[in-house]
């Protein structure tokens, strides 16, 4: 008798199980698989994961904050020799600056230009210090920092020379009755101002 194949399959479904597995052999595999799972229960992995996360998070936070705390103020933080060199240069700079500051005249364009140069060097030095904080023992930056001091000393020397020159000029003009150059410049400027306002 002909019948729908799907119906036959559903009716005979349980009787289709005709093959016998190697039950004991497979059970051994299941048993050892379950034993492995038992040896490392799920909670163990959860605890292990939390522990690893906590340790790595602590390490990361400590590392980050300690890195932020290490701020190199001077080259002596890197080595004693560098610290001594810097100290010597710093002292020279401050001594020369004191000397310049005490006799600084106003209104001299050459001197103003040199003072601007000094300010510029201070800005450059600050940026070098930031670079050094980030890269730590960076030789080119250290060299540039020392070079910066040398440049400052040269400019301060030039400033002292210019001050000396001006003093000498003023004295000689007083003796000869001539109006100093700076005073001429001021008169010219004032007269120029008058012509433009009129």
């Amino acid at each position, binding site marked *: 008798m002909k019948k729908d*194949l*799907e119906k036959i399959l559903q009716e*005979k479904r349980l009787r*289709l199980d*005709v*093959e*016998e597995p190697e039950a004991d052999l*497979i*059970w051994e595999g299941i048993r050892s698989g*379950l034993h492995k799972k038992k040896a490392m229960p799920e909670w163990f992995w959860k605890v292990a994961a939390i522990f690893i996360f906590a340790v790595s998070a602590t390490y990361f936070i400590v590392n980050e904050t300690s890195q932020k705390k290490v701020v190199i103020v001077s080259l002596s933080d890197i080595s004693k020799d560098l610290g001594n060199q810097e100290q010597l240069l710093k002292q020279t700079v401050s001594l020369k600056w004191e000397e310049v500051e005490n006799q600084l005249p106003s209104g001299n364009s050459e001197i103003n230009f040199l003072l601007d140069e000094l300010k510029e060097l201070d800005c450059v030095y600050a940026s070098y210090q930031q670079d050094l904080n980030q890269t730590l023992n960076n030789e080119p930056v250290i060299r540039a920092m020392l070079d910066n001091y040398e440049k400052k000393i040269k400019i301060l020397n030039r400033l002292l020379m210019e001050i000396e020159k001006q003093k000498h000029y003023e004295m000689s003009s007083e003796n000869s009755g001539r109006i100093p150059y700076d005073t001429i410049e001021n008169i010219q400027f004032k007269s120029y101002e008058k012509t433009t306002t009129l």
Partner: protein
Amino acid sequence: MEVIFNQNEQHLVRLCKKGDAKAQYKLYKLYSKGMYNLAVRMTNNQSMAEDVLQDAFIKAFGEINKLKNEKAFGGWLRRIVANLCIDASRKKKLLFTDMESLNESELEESVEVDDTVEPEQIHALIKKLPDGAREILVLRALEGYKHSEIGEQLGISESTAKTQFFRAKQLLAKMINEVNDEERSGKNITGEAIKA
């Protein structure tokens, strides 16, 4: 799908939830044959079916606490076995050949065979079906999966699953009819020989 379950099995499942090894073995003995036959029909490969059976029981016992309805253990286990078979066939990269899609009325046409066919023969012939067709036939006709579920599991469209199922039925029917015809002609020959 017929659900066979008794109080003893429910008790075994409860014990398995507590990690009782004896109960696990008893439950395994109850279901191993059925699950193995499902796996062997799906994969047509004895060693692959054994691997699937082993992995399925390890997974089932390992995750048995997730099973809320203790009476549904058999159906839940069958799903695990079927899914592992699908995973195994994915590794083989089953290819479903493009077939001309059939319309709804064609797909609902009844495929009929002689009712006298023996279960052993059906089981053997299902195993002879091409890989994709065999999986779809087992999932749909024997495991009660919907076409949409089959499509989702095998990564094919619902209409392809329907067409493949229809073709698989046609192919199985053809094979059953051939076996029946051979048997009939064999009986005739022996009958004629006896007469002679």
